[in-house]
């Protein structure tokens, strides 16, 4: 059950996010929540309804808008992921996504910093906040560390070794993520090319992809890409992911053909999915996502 003040601050945070993007010339868009063909991803499960799937992210529709010539767009919407429930997860949650034609993932890091600093100012919180007994300073330059450096430094292994031993995710949760909770927001970037998802492979180092995750206070706030625009490559990756889902006994989705077709017309872009509930948790010093939403599945 949220404190009354948390819901007031939540509204203020969302209003200031909106203002930030409007001031920067972004177009606010709404895309359908019910879609026929979600992006096939091994570990993200869409909820099936009688009229289609509930979106796990507005990503595919947003990119189709980029392909139609909308070059700066943002959206704040509900997303749904089956089976995700914990102190940081709800099966229905609020996502902020924004996409910029002509930008790359380093531009997005900068824009993330600007956006959160703007929200801190607008809400009158100052640039140093306390989260669960630790102070987080947003004013100094935010940290950046590659996935490879982080695994070496905090787990004494290369990420390749942990993929080989099939415990990349476990080590990320037990060793890497806690070490990143270090008084400042941090961008964890250059995920291995095998973890590229919908991002492009780095030209200078093809072993990694142009993807980052933003962490603050131990919370994973956002996932971002320099977007993959090669439709053939994207099709190949989707087929692999669909195959993985099949092997794991998960439900299969219709193939997103229209997205793949439109991708051919999408300009080089950067895009990011940002968890709004997590940002509200951070700024209201809430240990559980339950404390920042009006109702949870259990209290409905």
């Amino acid at each position, binding site marked *: 059950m949220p404190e009354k003040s948390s819901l007031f601050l939540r509204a203020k945070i969302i209003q200031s996010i909106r203002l930030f993007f409007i001031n920067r010339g972004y177009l606010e868009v709404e895309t359908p929540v019910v879609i026929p063909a979600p992006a096939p*991803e*091994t*570990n*993200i499960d869409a909820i099936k309804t009688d009229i289609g799937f509930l979106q796990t992210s507005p990503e595919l529709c947003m990119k189709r808008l980029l392909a139609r010539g909308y070059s700066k767009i943002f959206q704040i919407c509900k997303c749904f992921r089956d*089976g*995700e*429930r*914990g*102190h*940081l*997860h709800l099966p229905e949650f609020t996502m902020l996504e924004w996409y910029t034609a002509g930008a790359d993932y380093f531009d997005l890091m900068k824009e993330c910093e600007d956006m959160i600093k703007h929200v801190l100012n607008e809400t009158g919180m100052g640039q140093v906040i306390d989260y669960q007994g630790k102070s987080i300073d947003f004013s100094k330059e935010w940290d950046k560390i590659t996935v490879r450096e982080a695994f070496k430094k905090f787990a004494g292994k290369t990420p390749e070794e942990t993929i080989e031993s099939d415990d*990349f*995710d*476990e080590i*990320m*949760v037990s060793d890497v*993520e806690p070490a990143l909770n270090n008084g400042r927001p941090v961008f964890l970037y250059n995920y291995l090319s095998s*973890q590229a*998802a919908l991002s492009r492979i780095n030209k200078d180092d093809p072993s990694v992809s142009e993807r980052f*995750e933003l962490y603050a206070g131990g919370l*994973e706030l956002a*996932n971002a890409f320099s977007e993959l625009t090669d439709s053939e490559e994207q099709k190949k990756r989707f087929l692999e992911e669909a195959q993985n889902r099949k092997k*794991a*006994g998960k439900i299969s989705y219709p193939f997103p053909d229209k997205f793949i077709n439109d991708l051919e017309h999408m300009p080089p872009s950067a895009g990011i999915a940002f968890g709004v509930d997590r940002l509200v948790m951070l700024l209201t010093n809430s240990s559980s996502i339950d404390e920042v939403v009006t109702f949870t599945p259990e209290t409905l």
Partner: protein
Amino acid sequence: MYNASDLRKGLKIQIDGDPYIIVDFTFSKPGKGQALYKCKLKNMINGSGFERTYRSGDTFEQAVLDERNMQYLYNQENEYHFMDTDNYEQVMLNEEQVGDVKNYLIDNLEVVILFFGTIPIGITPPNFVNLTVTQADPWVKGDTSSGDSKPVTLETGYVLRVPPFIEEGIKIQVDTRTGEYVTRVKE
């Protein structure tokens, strides 16, 4: 059969033939990675524990447990004996299984015994139990130096803090969920 997504605090599952209870649970899912279900498990027979992280795809057998109302009889060499008053069947729990409940065990107390199959593994006392004070320092009226509570010993050997006016021989009610004094019982 349970799936990993059914795991939560308090769930009872069977591992290698033994019943376990999940005493702590964390769900995590690092960016685009798989769902991880970190569980702290406690063996409900011998109390031993371990921690393990499960993944989706892992399955678990349910631990089927029964509850029976029984009466406390006596304790001998750290063995606590109970009887089913319907069929006079007797069972025994060891000191570890009885745990803090031993603070409330007086003759003929009605308790609930938890069974895994035919094996007794746990005990739940009534929420409130009346117990006699067997040792207490006398109360000197007007003495404020001892504050607003003092320690006393009950007939079971349990020591707890009570208001200063409670004296030896008095019966008090204790909340077994908190272990705290509730009220003086008038006979």
